């Protein structure tokens, strides 16, 4: 029987994800993250995502090791696994929340100093604020989706581990 299947699945999924990111970078679609007014928010979200990803692989390696042990007939106690994995799911919530905060910052930038007397300048500020708001939403939801798929794979593997451990025990 093959071992470490969860790790391989996650590696394939994330390699596809990073390939898409590389394609977007080559095409210049990632400039809004690193060069626009949403650059700081983008950097924070990328940092949170990468931290979540590292944590995901650490947890996945533990779940995978437990599955390997179970396949080898060794006893496993998976009771705390799902609790210890839960912060990976919460990373997606954090990413979406940062996006919402970025959206609000963009709105504040858009309406700050709005004056109908100086409509041209107000429209320019509005455009900058909208760029920040929409960029924050786009980045946060994309990363939250990516993290969500990863978490779902980890969650499924953990649930199967618990079922198999109960059946074995």
């Amino acid at each position, binding site marked *: 029987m093959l071992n470490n299947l969860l790790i391989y699945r996650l590696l394939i999924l994330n390699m596809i994800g990073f390939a898409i990111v590389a394609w977007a970078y080559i095409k210049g679609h990632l400039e809004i993250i690193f060069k626009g007014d949403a650059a700081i928010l983008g950097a924070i979200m990328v940092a949170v995502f990468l931290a979540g990803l590292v944590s995901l692989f650490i947890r996945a390696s533990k779940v995978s090791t437990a599955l390997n042990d179970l396949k080898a007939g060794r006893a496993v106690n998976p*009771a705390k696994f*799902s*609790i210890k994995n*839960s912060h990976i*799911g*919460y990373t*997606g*919530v954090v990413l*979406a*929340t940062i*996006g*919402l905060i970025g*959206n*609000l910052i*963009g*709105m504040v930038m*858009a*309406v700050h100093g*709005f004056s*109908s007397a100086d*409509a*041209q300048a*107000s*429209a320019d500020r*509005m*455009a900058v*604020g*909208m760029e920040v*708001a*929409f960029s924050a*939403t786009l980045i*946060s*939801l994309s990363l*939250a989706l990516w993290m*969500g798929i990863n*978490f779902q794979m980890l*969650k499924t593997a953990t649930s199967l581990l*618990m079922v198999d451990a109960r059946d074995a025990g």
Partner: protein
Amino acid sequence: MQDEHDYGDEINGIAFRDILLNTLLGVFAILVAVITMIKMEQQAKATAEPPGNLMVTITWPSGPTDVDLWLDGPAEPVPIGYSNKNGVLWNLLRDDLGDMPDATPLNFENAFTRGVVPGEYTVGLHCYRCPVLPVPVDVEISLNKDAGKKGEKSPTKILVTTKVELTRQGQERTAINFKLNADGSIDPESMNSVFKPLRSAKK
């Protein structure tokens, strides 16, 4: 076993609020864009500079009717009309012959003064070719004191509007006589429409 928290629902809830706020921002942006366009249009109107100071415009219904505008003013040796378009004070910008030859059905003539010269003015109308009678003619006199000057311009101000009806072919009528003050205002006591021939006048 502990019930697992559904983070998917939580993310969906945040995403929904996020998109809702983006939509609100988009609607607000559209409102700002509309206000900006209206402002720019108003500014364009305000900064459009007429070619002269005192302006007389006459309009009449579209068709082959040819009405002529005649003008007199202080220091003007000969009244201004289609046969004498350029005076020392007035300039007739266009002699509208009705719908021939014309790119649009709009019938109007206008004249301008260079400078605001106080004194007696007369605006006359002549029914040169009137196949359809009567001919209602709208007359508007407006003033832009700052036309031709550098710097910020005051907006054009309408001084008088009146309506004159020409009832027969060849009829000449005085639309208005008025006295212009040095500050660009019209002496209200001076306004009348006592006939003063201009077309065949000799000073």
